[in-house]
């Protein structure tokens, strides 16, 4: 039984809710939340807007200080670290963000953006860094020539690949992804999700994947945590939670998801769905 890579303990985050200064309201985004994740797992956090999932992510990344509770990464409280210790921690925990449009400095080339993490940690020489950048680009399925391009010249899918490349530059242990495919077309989303899976296998990563899209979470996660109003209402192995939801909210969420395979034909479709698993190199549909 391996040590949890990350342990979030009774974390709460209250924001200033306005009002007169003698009677300030507070808005609780995250409420006494705990979770842990073991090395090699993919934890999916699913929730609607206002559930606090993005706030939780920022707390884990040490971008936001919780009003209560602790975040322990590799056994150490992230807020007890500073200087060298903090930088070492950051190196081991990286992130992929949602908005492909604003995740990159528009004035920097892709190569410069990818080399930045290496520069911060003084890794390699300029030539060595260039090589590592090219290596990372190839790993995410982009030609090394992309290093010369600028973010606005890339498509949404290409940008997210670069975002993934940036996250893995320092070979972290944990990667947090905040709705990384929400802004992408369906076909591109599939490419990026498969890339996430491939990277995990290739580099032995651990993931925390936040999304409001249940289909995406079901596809990518081993374990899932369902968030509602700052709390985790249900958690467990993905398959178990999705096929047999126990909490009312989880059930409501699943019921609300419109699904191409569901509908009046019901389970009959599940059988039909299996057809889609066959590779497309078979005889084309129409001639059957």
């Amino acid at each position, binding site marked *: 039984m391996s040590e949890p890579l990350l342990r979030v303990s009774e974390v709460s985050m209250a924001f200033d809710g306005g009002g007169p200064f003698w009677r300030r309201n507070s808005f609780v985004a995250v409420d006494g939340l705990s979770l842990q994740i073991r090395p090699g797992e993919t934890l999916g956090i699913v929730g*609607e*807007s206002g559930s606090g999932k993005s706030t939780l992510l920022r707390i884990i990344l040490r971008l936001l200080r919780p009003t209560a509770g602790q975040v322990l990464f590799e056994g150490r409280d992230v807020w007890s670290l500073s200087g060298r210790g903090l930088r070492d921690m950051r190196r081991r925990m990286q992130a992929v963000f949602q908005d492909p449009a604003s995740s990159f400095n528009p004035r920097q080339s892709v190569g410069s953006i990818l080399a930045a993490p290496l520069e911060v940690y003084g890794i390699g020489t300029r030539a060595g860094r260039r090589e590592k950048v090219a290596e990372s680009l190839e790993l995410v399925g982009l030609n090394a020539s992309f290093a010369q391009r600028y973010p606005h010249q890339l*498509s*949404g*899918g290409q940008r997210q690949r670069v975002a993934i490349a940036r996250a893995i530059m320092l070979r972290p242990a944990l990667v947090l992804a905040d709705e990384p495919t929400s802004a992408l*077309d*369906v*076909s*591109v*989303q*599939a*490419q990026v*999700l*498969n890339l996430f899976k491939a990277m995990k296998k290739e580099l032995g990563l651990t993931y925390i994947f936040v999304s*409001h*899209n*249940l*289909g*995406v*979470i*079901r*596809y990518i996660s081993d374990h899932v945590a369902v968030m509602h109003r700052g709390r985790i209402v249900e958690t467990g192995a993905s*398959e178990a939670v*999705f096929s047999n939801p126990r909490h009312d909210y989880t059930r*409501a*969420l*699943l*019921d*609300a*998801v*419109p*699904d*191409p*395979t*569901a*509908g*009046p*034909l019901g389970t009959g*479709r*599940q059988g*039909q*769905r299996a057809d*889609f*698993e066959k*590779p*497309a*190199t078979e005889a*084309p*549909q*129409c*001639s059957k």
Partner: protein
Amino acid sequence: MDQGRPRLPGGSQPVLEISGLSIEFDTPRGVARVVDDVSLSVRSGEIVGVIGESGSGKTLTALSVLGLLPKRARVRSGSIRLAGESLIGLPEARWRAIRGDRVAFIPQDALRALNPVLRVDTQVGEPLHLHRGTPWQAARRRAVDLLTAVHLREPAAQAKKYPHQFSGGMQQRAMIAMGLALEPQLLIADEPTTALDVTVQAQVLKLLREIRDTYGTSILFITHDLGVVAELCDRIYVMYAGAIVEEGPVRRIFARPRHPYSEALLRATPTARSVQAELVSIPGQIPLPSELPPGCRFVDRCSVAFDACRRDPPPFAIEAGHTARCWHCEPRP
């Protein structure tokens, strides 16, 4: 909602008929045909979905029905008929009379479409004031009726509020109420639920179905979400890179998609309700309108392409009302 105007009996003439529509833009690389020979129709009381990813031309097609194409877009050819009236080349005055009255638009981002400094009842009642000359007091009262019809809770009280005080779902309901104000024959909804939470989305879809069932309003629903069309639509058109590649009843297409793109799209969509071994992604990228491959536009990404695909296939009929633009569907002699 009272029966203001006599309705066309269902099925006699399509509410909307688009025929061979092509729209072009000038770009530095030459002329880009962003909508290519698109034909679609919506019958009375039907909910028709147009599915496509970015660059498919679905939004531009919808906007052409409202006369809201960007200035640089040119309608190259084709016709658009709304309840028999031709819409191409209409003068702006006639467009203004039609918009809201015969065809209403529900945009994706309700908050941005609402005026932040006007009360909700004022805005929802505005079409009545503009088109029917209803005085403001009466228009606002009607607005409350409309907000009730879209199941807004405590409509009388909420109507006096401002858009930013509404949640996303409420804003979208307000937009729908505004769209229904003049009892249009057609509602065009452009990704109206994409920005909403999934539980709120379910409610809005239910509302749209109810509107069709109760008032017989036809709906043209533009989206990229396959799940949504499966739940809501009767018939769908699948668009890719500016053209319609498959059309037909939604159940048929989902059960057995005939065009490789429709099938690939289904396979690439993650679903929450069943186990999925693998999402099969489509290799390559959607081509730019100015860089379409010669022949079938899907040829570079298609896993079953063969030599006939060097020519652009016409739509082939598979069964009644179901066609696909793929050489594999060419009827054998």
